[in-house]
């Protein structure tokens, strides 16, 4: 197994993202704080084997979000995403 096999996409984080945002998020658009690329969260790179779940920009690989679960808490770092647009 190489690193490429560990790279999934936003669909793999859909359940976790719904825990955080309480709505369906794979259709939401996220704008990368580093390069400005805007993509549906279903299309971003996702690594689930890091401690926690890491979402990366598919254009520049900047970390968009990290979500780490510890005991009863979810620790969410959104510093890599400038803007999120949710359909509704």
């Amino acid at each position, binding site marked *: 197994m190489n690193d490429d096999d*560990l*790279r999934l996409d936003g*669909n793999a984080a*859909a*359940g976790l993202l719904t825990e955080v945002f309480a709505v369906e998020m*794979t259709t939401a658009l996220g704008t990368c704080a580093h390069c400005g690329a805007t993509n549906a969260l*279903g299309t971003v790179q996702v690594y689930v084997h890091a401690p926690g779940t890491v979402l990366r920009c598919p254009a520049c690989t900047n970390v968009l979000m990290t979500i780490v679960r510890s005991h009863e808490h979810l620790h969410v770092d959104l510093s890599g995403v400038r803007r999120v647009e949710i359909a509704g």
Partner: protein
Amino acid sequence: MTWRVATIRDMREETASAKTLVLDVPDWPGHLAGQHVDVRLTAEDGYQAQRSYSIASAPEERMVALTVVRFADGEVSPYLVDEMRPGDELELRGPIGGWFVWDAHDGGPLLLVAGGSGLVPLMAMLRHRHAVASHVPARLLVSARRAEDLLYSAELAELAEADDGFELLATLTREAPAGWTGFTRRIDREMLEEVAWSPRELARTFVCGPTAFVEAAADALVGLGHDPALIKTERFGPTGGSET
């Protein structure tokens, strides 16, 4: 999104390593073809393991069907495939996802490209298309190692014989039986050029399978001139999801 306790009503053997679990889920809100669920198992000592599984059944069916492929060194799939029995319960939450979905009202043509168990969510789309008697032109290109690894092969053959605009194409990458008339190599640009409609037809395209498979197929389609915005991809991980 709440965890629900589902009861296994039936188990169907699909291949030597895959079974379909047919689940009765109380208060199931309904789903769209392409969505998945998270399944959670809890050991007696409280340890929990969680995985994502695509829904194989059409939204029109009353029960929710999940097809699970056993990974030999997996933590969850061997238990689901080998240990669970009808009448047993498991926890799930869903439906999950909204990007990798297709509804007959979205129209077509519909191009589906599946690697291995990546066929599962695409099968839900084909079952949905059939359940609502849609005649949207649809083509499935499915890749498996051997004929006996092909999921749903009898049902797919039946759907293809219905003469309602669905065409089935398959490739076997390791070993093909005598008389096999399909492809016998990994999916590549030439195969996709032969199978796909012209990019001008603006087919709604869904590609699902292991990461390397999905990226090779999607890149080839884009290289052939298909609009990336019409190509939706879902990558399956080696363990099918995250641990908690």
